């Protein structure tokens, strides 16, 4: 076990392994033979120039895309590809670059929707409401309120999500992912489009999630400052291939990475 960047954090064994993942859409090769792993409790960043295949990588982890080749190891089993709801059931949560919130619903309803897998009362009991369904609803409302407190969004509980500014929407999306109590959290550009203050808040939240709940985090991020600050290990993609893998410092000084970002032809 290695000690992480932040004092006191113990990083565990490998929880997610990706081996030789290749993904193509028609003629476009999005990912080519990518192999890396993610360890328990760590914050793993995926970086790379635009079009490098980062979002595709996340989509593979999450089950939206099935890779043509390669194996995913998660939860002690091997998979060729996953279905999204199976991934959710196994404890993988996710946020999106372009925000995938349910616009017709309030913040509270969105986050409660995240508790869906944990709620078991069947449809008939819900029709009755009185009794088990009511108790379950309250129990999960309690859990959701904790998350709302944690992310400081109490004041917008009842606001329809479509009316919120971008930064708050991202926070609500994070809340919904947290409501699933995920073992692995995939964040696709959580800081995109935020000003400095919002970014600081989001960083704080991400780190607290990692610290407090022990959630393993994989994030895609363009802001190098953020990446260097909060991640334990970084993997760099370029044109669908992995070109570097290591701690932030190692990656920062890797020549291949510098070339990729400067656009040096290779």
């Amino acid at each position, binding site marked *: 076990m290695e000690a992480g960047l932040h004092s006191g954090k113990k990083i565990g064994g490998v929880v997610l392994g990706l081996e030789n993942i290749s993904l193509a859409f028609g003629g476009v090769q999005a990912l080519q033979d990518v192999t890396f792993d993610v360890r328990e409790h760590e914050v793993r960043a995926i970086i790379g120039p635009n079009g490098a295949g980062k979002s595709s990588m996340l989509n593979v982890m999450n089950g939206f895309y099935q890779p043509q080749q390669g194996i995913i190891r998660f939860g002690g089993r091997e998979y060729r590809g996953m279905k*999204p709801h199976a991934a959710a059931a196994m404890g993988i949560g996710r946020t999106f670059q372009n925000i995938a919130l349910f616009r017709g619903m309030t913040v509270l309803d969105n986050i409660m*929707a995240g508790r869906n897998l944990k709620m078991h009362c069947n449809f008939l009991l819900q029709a009755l409401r009185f009794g088990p369904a009511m108790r379950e609803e309250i129990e999960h409302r309690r859990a959701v309120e904790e998350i709302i407190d944690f992310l400081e969004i109490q004041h917008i509980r009842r606001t329809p999500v479509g009316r919120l500014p971008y930064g708050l929407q991202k926070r609500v999306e994070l809340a919904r992912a947290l409501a699933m109590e995920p073992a692995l959290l995939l964040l696709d550009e959580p800081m995109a489009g935020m000003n400095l203050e919002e970014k600081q808040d989001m960083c704080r939240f991400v780190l607290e999630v990692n610290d407090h709940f022990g959630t393993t985090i994989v994030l895609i991020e363009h802001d190098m400052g953020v990446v260097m600050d909060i991640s334990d290990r970084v993997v760099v993609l370029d044109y669908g291939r992995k070109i570097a893998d290591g701690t932030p410092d190692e990656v920062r000084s890797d020549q291949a990475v510098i070339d990729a970002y400067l656009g040096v032809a290779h």
Partner: protein
Amino acid sequence: MLYREVGQYKTSYAADQALLPILQDRIGIVVILLIAFVGVPLTASDFTLNSVLIPILVFSLAATGLNLLTGYTGLLSLGTGGFMGVGAYACYKLTTYFPQVNIIVLILSSGFFAAAVGIAFGLPSLRIKGFYLAVATLAAQFFLSWCFIRIPWLYNYNISASIEVPTKTLFGLAVTGPTATSVTRYLIVLTIVAVLTLIAANLVRGRTGRTWMAVRDMDLAAELIGIRLYQTKLLSFAVSSFYCGVAGAMLVFLYLGNAEPSSFDINQSFLILFMVIIGGLGSLLGSFLGAALIWGLPILLRHAPAFFGLSIESAKVDQSTFMILGVLIIFFLVVEPQGLARLWQIGKQKLRMWPFPY
């Protein structure tokens, strides 16, 4: 001022999540229920009961059913008339085979047949969405209309292809058939609609409602929080068709007294869809408001000229109704796409401050 919520603090999650968290709402509902269950039977005329209230309640139920499918789950359906028909004919066959069973039980059971048919026609929803699914429901509508004519077993081989409702009793009182009084029929319809609406409200507030709305808003995102799309859509079809089926059975047994295949054709489907659109997609209150408006408007128009001392032939009134209906739909979509229910909410909002300007 009237509608001030300030000061009504909720001290538990249960209170916060109640169906009617605001005191004024609760008082309002009690008043409405009192009027509906007690006041109306005592004072309303036969005409009001027979031609206004009973059909509005029955159509509200059908509109609720369609609203669950289209407003909450986002699956546009043009097959409502057909599903209502399944309920009606199922009820008819059930009374033929089980004449001794309580009619209320039969009416509710016929909902299950409609639900089964609804699931069958919802099966394509795995692969097709949106407008294309609407066309699939249109296919269901035309196919069911065809069945109602071409399967003589359904109407007991009656030569005119119509069904007549037999007299059934409950606690010694005639409830269906020509001898049933309008008050009895009204109370039964009211009770069934009230109970089923309560159940719909419970479903919509809880996990089922949230999964439906999630599927409506962004089904890809719904998948990643673990919602199983197919089961959710099929459940929506089932519940919605159940409601439409019960409404169809009530339409025949407690309102019309008889029915022909044309009672459940495509025009019926459009009518209910308009009720839902104008009333408000995704609002249970909207189903009632829409039904009241669309059913009540022609009646109003038919009687308005007499009220003002003019006389216009009834055919012209019907045609004007079509035109006004068309204009109303466009008007609502332009001005308030969320329908009458939203206008109601805005009205409540204003009531919060009235008579103060701000």
